[in-house]
């Protein structure tokens, strides 16, 4: 057999490499990757997989008092505060908690698929939030490992929350 090893010029190699990495990310996706190491959901998950498993990534600034999420909403977005503060409001105007940067909220909705049970407002002018949805339609037998990691991260977070609650004096 004649061995046919194909040779490529430097310029050709550059063209091929450029095309291979040409999957263009939106600015919001790039921002999400930038901060992904701060988002516990993504612990241990490769950046390329984060892009594959998320959708509708948005990057938004809020004025003080703007509604970020409304009680009763059927949305499944996860929110991460990049800058500023948000407050959790129930029964109209009662503030029950504040969420500071860099923290996240709303991450259980994609698991439970239930309505939001609180309203969240921007408390500081210019509160900046990145939001995204977990695209669990993509979870299948070939692409399942990143989702296994995601669920593990959620389980670990819930465990931590239960431990903290248990430590609080009754």
């Amino acid at each position, binding site marked *: 057999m004649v*061995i046919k090893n194909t040779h490529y010029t430097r310029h050709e190699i550059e063209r091929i*490499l450029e*095309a291979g990495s040409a999957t263009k990310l939106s600015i919001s996706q790039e921002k999400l990757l930038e901060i992904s190491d701060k988002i516990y959901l993504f612990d241990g998950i490769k950046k390329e997989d984060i892009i594959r498993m998320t959708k509708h990534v948005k990057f938004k600034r809020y004025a003080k008092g703007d509604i970020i999420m409304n009680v009763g909403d059927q949305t499944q977005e996860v929110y991460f505060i990049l800058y500023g503060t948000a407050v959790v409001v129930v029964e109209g105007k009662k503030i029950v908690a504040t969420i500071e940067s860099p923290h996240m909220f709303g991450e259980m909705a994609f698991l439970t698929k239930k309505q939001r049970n609180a309203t969240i407002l921007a408390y500081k002018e210019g509160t900046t939030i990145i939001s995204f949805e977990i695209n669990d339609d993509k979870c299948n037998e070939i692409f399942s490992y990143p989702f296994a990691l995601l669920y593990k991260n959620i389980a670990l977070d819930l465990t931590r929350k239960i431990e903290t609650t248990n430590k609080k004096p009754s």
Partner: protein
Amino acid sequence: MNNGFSYSEKSELSTVAFELLTFIQNFMDDYFHDEYEVIQFNINFLESNGFAYQTKVDYMKLNRFIATAYSTIEFNDGKIIDELLSKFYKDIIFLNHFYKNFLEKTKDIHSVFKHLFLKSVEGSLGLYMRLSEKVEKISDDELKAFEEYVKEEFHNEFRKEFETYQEQLCKIINTKTYYFDKLLWNEARKSSAIQEFFKKSKRTENELNDELSTKIFIQQYLQTIDMSHTKNVNWHHYLQNILTIMD
């Protein structure tokens, strides 16, 4: 290992086993010489130029869709297929043929053992004479047992070599095909003739402008399949899964 053939001295056995392995290894080096060369060349090419190995999608299973994409693009706007794309495509076709030949030449280990390896050492008696320092007469039963022992060793070594070469060839072909697919569509997207063709053909309900890729042909193929009647459920299910992870 004991197939009824044994040496009285343990040290003698290990020396013979070692020498036998050398014979087998020398044979393998000759037998897989082309594979070794192709793999070395391609691994060196990919690694020294900063390519990233692609393993998520098995592009070798998607060859027919890549071929359809290539011919459709070439038919609608031949200018897209420049020297690089044409060369790259031929390279991938060569590698796929090469891989098929590799599978063909490795599918019947027993035949390789009997007709090539044993022949190269003048049969099991010839091998026995080469390995045994004592020139003693060997009975037919002993020779048969010896041949069984050699056969088992040969099969084990052959399987190991096969798996190594197969893994590397698949990795190379998958990676090169991934980059080829990317380059092909990267160029095709720039062509108004291609954009028009896919808009007119209305082959899928997806937003074609954003989704121009080989996925179109997989989707189109799947649309023609009645999943409740197909015999290839696993294959079609595999393709549906592939669509979710292909870029």
